[in-house]
């Protein structure tokens, strides 16, 4: 019996050590990024362009680039995602089509991001001759985000109680009316959470935009869909691997990382808050 008690104690200790290591590691990680990056942050950093061949100055073009890439790709994804989710939850005939669409979604969801980058390069940049541009990057990101958003929408629609469907149909509404007037409006907060999660994901991706949109050496803001753009995640990567002056560039990279993290974490936090406030308000 004593042996078992000792084992129990050791087990507890072991688990606690594991948890402590994990938390410590993540803390060190975040502290390091925020402390080194925080030093560089300033209005100037955020809102001016880089100087001196990317060795000094701010990151505004990267911020703008990430903004536009995210906005455009999300705009593409939202209607496609909601409609596909409606198909999967409400129409879904013939059955084989349903299965194939689900397989397609799951496969795309599990595909590494670099492959999307290659796809984007082959199809948008080369085949459709859109060149390395904002639109190529946004389309590539849209394809990456699509399966994730579709799955969010499916969950959102499934969370609408069947009672509401029944009641609507019993009042003489058609399927379309039930979906557009009852189901989607009821699912909207959860769909919104899904959108926010996608935003966080898209803003942080590097590999898909490496060959389709991003560039290191431009100081201009994108003026049209055909321009190359800078982007926050790519900027970090390029500063660290192509930079020629680490003393100034590594801090800039950290600063950029802080901005990116605040963006992404802020967005995730918003999603968590919205989701718990939905759960609290929900009366059914």
């Amino acid at each position, binding site marked *: 019996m004593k042996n078992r008690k000792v084992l129990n104690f050791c087990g507890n200790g072991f688990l606690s050590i594991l948890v402590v290591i994990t938390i410590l590691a993540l803390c060190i990680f975040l502290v390091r990024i925020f402390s080194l990056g925080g030093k560089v942050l300033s209005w100037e950093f955020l809102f001016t362009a880089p100087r001196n061949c990317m060795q000094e100055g701010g990151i505004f073009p990267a911020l703008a680039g990430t903004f536009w890439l995210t906005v455009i790709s999300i705009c593409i994804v939202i209607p496609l995602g909601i409609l596909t989710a409606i198909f999967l939850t409400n129409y879904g005939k013939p059955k084989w089509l349903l299965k194939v669409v689900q397989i397609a979604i799951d496969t795309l969801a599990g595909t590494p991001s670099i492959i999307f980058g290659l796809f984007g390069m082959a199809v948008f940049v080369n085949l459709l001759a859109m060149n390395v541009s904002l639109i190529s990057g946004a389309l590539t990101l849209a394809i990456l985000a699509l399966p994730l958003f579709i799955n969010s929408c499916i969950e959102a629609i499934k969370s609408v109680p069947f009672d509401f469907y*029944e009641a609507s149909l*019993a*009042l*003489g509404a058609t399927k379309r009316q039930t979906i557009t007037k009852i189901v989607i409006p009821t699912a909207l907060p959860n769909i919104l959470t899904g959108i926010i999660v996608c935003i966080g994901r898209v803003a942080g991706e590097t590999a898909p935009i490496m060959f389709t949109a991003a560039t290191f050496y431009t100081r201009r803001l994108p003026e049209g869909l055909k321009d190359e753009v800078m982007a926050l995640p790519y900027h970090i990567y390029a500063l660290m691997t192509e930079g020629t002056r680490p003393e100034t560039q590594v801090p800039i990279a950290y600063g950029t990382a802080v901005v990116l993290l605040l963006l992404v974490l802020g967005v995730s936090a918003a999603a968590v808050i919205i989701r718990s406030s939905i759960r609290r308000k929900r*009366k059914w």
Partner: protein
Amino acid sequence: MVNNILSTENLNLWFGRNYVLKYVNLNVSDKNITAVIGPSGCGKSTLLRCFNRMNDLIPETHIEGKVKLLDDDIYTSKMDVTEIRSRIGMVFQKPNPFPKSIYKNVAYGLQIQGKYNKDEINERVEQALKAAWLWDEVKDRLHSPAMALSGGQQQRLCIARALANRPEVLLLDEPTSALDPQSTSKIEELCLELQKSVCILIVTHNIAQAGRISNYTAFMYLGELVEFGPTEKVFTVPQDKRTESYLTGIFG
């Protein structure tokens, strides 16, 4: 001479392999309350749902025989199913108002038809809420959430919502089983009032309720319509042994 507004002719229904309704021949008279009673699983809710084709929602449903609204078989009719459902309204066991305002709930059935203007809708919403005995309680907060109402009020709201369509028939599927006794008796009284303008077909597992409010009672057992007649007769001198056992089993 009573008017048969709803009727079935040799109605047989299967869910997949389950033979659920067996040669049901029922006549429901207009401007009356008809109750359908019977033990759990006897098919009474399924029968009710045949009348507004809500069984269509269940896959592998197979129907033979006729279900008629007046003289029109609703399964072969030229009428679209949505029109049938606006003429035959339904209230469910668990109150299910939409997560919208009281006004929007009641107006829903009218808005989807797209043929009424704002004034007409306002008028009919008010009439429906008055007919459901809910108007006085909500007239000052028509645009507040329906889900903030109590259970009994929600159910009356669902009745108002169905009444807004001015249906010819109101199907009630155990409408009070989820409610407290006070709300229950209020809704029973409401039914007695509504039958003057609308045919009411109510499914209930509460025999006393059937006895209190209905003019006609149908007793179902294992998918068959065992007995049907004026409520007083069915309750006092049941013709079939099974009816008698059911009625006395609960009382005794």
